[in-house]
């Protein structure tokens, strides 16, 4: 009989998350990502700004405050319906700044190029980047390129870092949500993730799924002008989706979140793709959606502000913050039952059947 060396004496199961190497799940935006940052990065890089774990770091300069954020893009395919890695890299960092209430001013960018990348792909990425920066009134003021051997990168990786200035009257924070605050979602969810997955898997549907990649700066500016300080917290639910973003806010603010299924909009083609692949749209990435908690008396005005812009035309009031079930997100289903919407340990895995 063949014996398996590693099975001998394995009376106690090995903790599967506390493993010795990086796994793909560490990049999922779920519990493994959170643990990676908490256990590996924070202990050695700790400081009061980083410890906030906001979408951007807020630092004082010359009597005012600026926000700074960085994001690296490794999307595959490089071009997808609704955008490419260039536009995505600008929108992503602008959105991270906007979620702290900052008005973005400057960006830097770094490109890691793989030997053999066609210039036409690179040119399209740079053009999309330039266009996205222009549309949002930001200037790209520094850049870097590196080229690696064929096989050492997946075509093209892009980093962007951004700086924005803060309005002292408008300081949304992940830990500022209070019981009673109203939750708004700015539009239909799960489009970016399913656009990428459909392109990757070669899935074809009656109507093509487009990424929602867009700058959220105009929506945040509208909120700032119309309801200002009543905005308690903003988040753009990218990796890990709406579920992970709301879980993070629930934990940071020490509140429970009630989320109404009937107010979460999933486009029909996206819902169909999710059904086919066995995925829950609540955990699928968005690149042009924000979730906001606002003070109850400002909720209607905030909703009107979001709906006044094309990007927010399908905004909904989708729930509220409560005292009970602190740190948890509770989904109120159309059937009237309630269940927990947890953070996933790692990546969402497609089902067998």
């Amino acid at each position, binding site marked *: 009989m063949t014996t398996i060396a590693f099975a001998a004496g394995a009376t106690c199961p090995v903790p599967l998350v506390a493993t010795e190497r990086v796994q793909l799940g560490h990049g999922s935006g779920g519990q493994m990502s959170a643990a990676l940052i908490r256990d590996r990065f924070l202990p050695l890089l700790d400081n009061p700004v980083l410890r906030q774990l906001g979408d951007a770091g807020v630092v004082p300069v010359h009597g005012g405050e600026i926000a700074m954020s960085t994001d690296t893009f490794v999307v595959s395919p490089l071009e997808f319906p609704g955008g490419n890695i260039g536009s995505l890299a600008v929108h992503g960092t602008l959105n991270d700044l906007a979620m702290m209430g900052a008005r973005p001013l400057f960006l830097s960018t770094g490109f890691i190029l793989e030997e053999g990348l066609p210039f036409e792909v690179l040119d399209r990425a740079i053009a999309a980047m330039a266009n996205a920066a222009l549309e949002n009134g930001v200037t790209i003021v520094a850049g870097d390129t590196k080229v690696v051997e064929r096989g050492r990168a997946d075509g093209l990786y892009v980093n962007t870092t951004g700086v924005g200035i803060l309005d002292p009257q408008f300081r949304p924070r992940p830990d500022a949500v209070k019981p009673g605050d109203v939750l708004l979602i700015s539009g239909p969810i799960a489009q970016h993730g399913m656009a990428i997955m459909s392109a990757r898997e070669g899935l074809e549907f009656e109507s093509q799924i487009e990424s929602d990649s867009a700058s959220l700066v105009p929506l945040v500016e509208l909120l700032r002008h119309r309801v200002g300080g009543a905005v308690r917290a903003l988040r753009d639910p990218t990796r890990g989706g709406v579920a992970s973003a709301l879980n993070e806010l629930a934990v940071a603010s020490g509140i429970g979140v009630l989320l109404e299924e009937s107010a979460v909009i999933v486009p029909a083609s996206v819902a169909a793709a999710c059904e086919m692949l066995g995925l829950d749209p609540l955990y699928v990435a968005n690149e042009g959606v924000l979730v906001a908690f606002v003070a109850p008396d400002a909720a209607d005005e905030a909703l009107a502000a979001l709906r006044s812009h094309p990007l927010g035309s399908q905004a909904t009031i989708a729930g509220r913050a409560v005292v009970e079930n602190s740190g*948890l997100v509770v989904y109120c289903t159309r059937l009237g039952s309630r269940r*927990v919407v947890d953070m996933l340990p790692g990546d969402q895995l497609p089902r*067998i059947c």
Partner: protein
Amino acid sequence: MKYLDEYRDAAIVRSLAARLRRTATRRWVLMEVCGGQTHTIVKQGLDELVGDAVEMIHGPGCPVCVTPLEQIDKALMLAERPDVIFTSFGDMLRVPGSDCDLQQVRARGGTVRVVYSPLDALQLAIRTPEKHVVFFAVGFETTAPANAMAVWRARELGVRNFSVLVSHVTVPPAMTALLSAPDNRVQGFLAAGHVCTVMGWSEYEPIAAQYRVPIVVTGFETVDIMEGMLMAVQQLEEGRFEVENQYVRSVTRDGTVPARHLVAQVFELVDRKWRGIGAIPRSGLGLRPEFADFDAELRFGLGDIVVDEPAECHAGDVLRGKLKPFECPAFGTLCTPSRPLGAPMVSSEGACAAYFNYRRLERRSEQPDVVAVATEQSL
């Protein structure tokens, strides 16, 4: 969404639940066979809508959960080989083997790819002639036709670098084993709609007659399941023990005949070990001798590995319906989705995962300590 929203209509579900409560004169014990149905029930709270009329026991129909540990360990050994590209449905990646899981093997340098169809794995083999591609052929009768087709096509095309690690199981022997147990409590079944889409329901007729249990072939949406429960309870109240079909939009008595023929040509009935349950005679599908070239166990000499399962994991009692997941001493403490002891805590169809993910509100009010630990570990 067309063809789905109709079967998720909240008003219809509530009215069916009300009819069920009026129909039942006592509390009946039903088992849903399929893990997909378990998740709908727990996720949508269907068991709560029917009150005291029905107790649902969650059945063994989660293909990931019943795949025996030794097959997982064989998968890990194959995935570690530098000459192998190991392909699998996504569900299997986080299922714990004796020492690790497929995701960790990938982090250590093994090549593990998620595919949506075994035919994609075959295509990968054709595109990658310098490697050997193994597909992890798990599942009930539902996935068997596609897996049979991949092997059939591989032989037809003469693809030499493709094989399958088979761990197929079939539903009727598991139902018979459950019903024959002296302490059986199950009085009626919701049979798995997709399994029956392939196989039809004729093979359930002798089971219903011999054990005097109603069996209702049932779909997966909320309206389907509520209607299936109502049909089973109506039979029990009237003293009938028949096979009925709720899932008429998908299932006929004979099933999908070409798919059944293909399965019968490629696979034969074999004895199979079920994780947590043990060996059940003639309960699995194995490749017929004429397809031995495509059997990964024979090609890589893995056939005689036997592994014992960890004693702390009560997955077998959960899979047989003896324990509710939260009654397991390890639930939420020793065993969480981040640190699973057994497959039912990981799989998207596993009963333990369903309770852990969706039912922590009730647990929190009943057992604050347990959930405090669980939440802390999962953050």
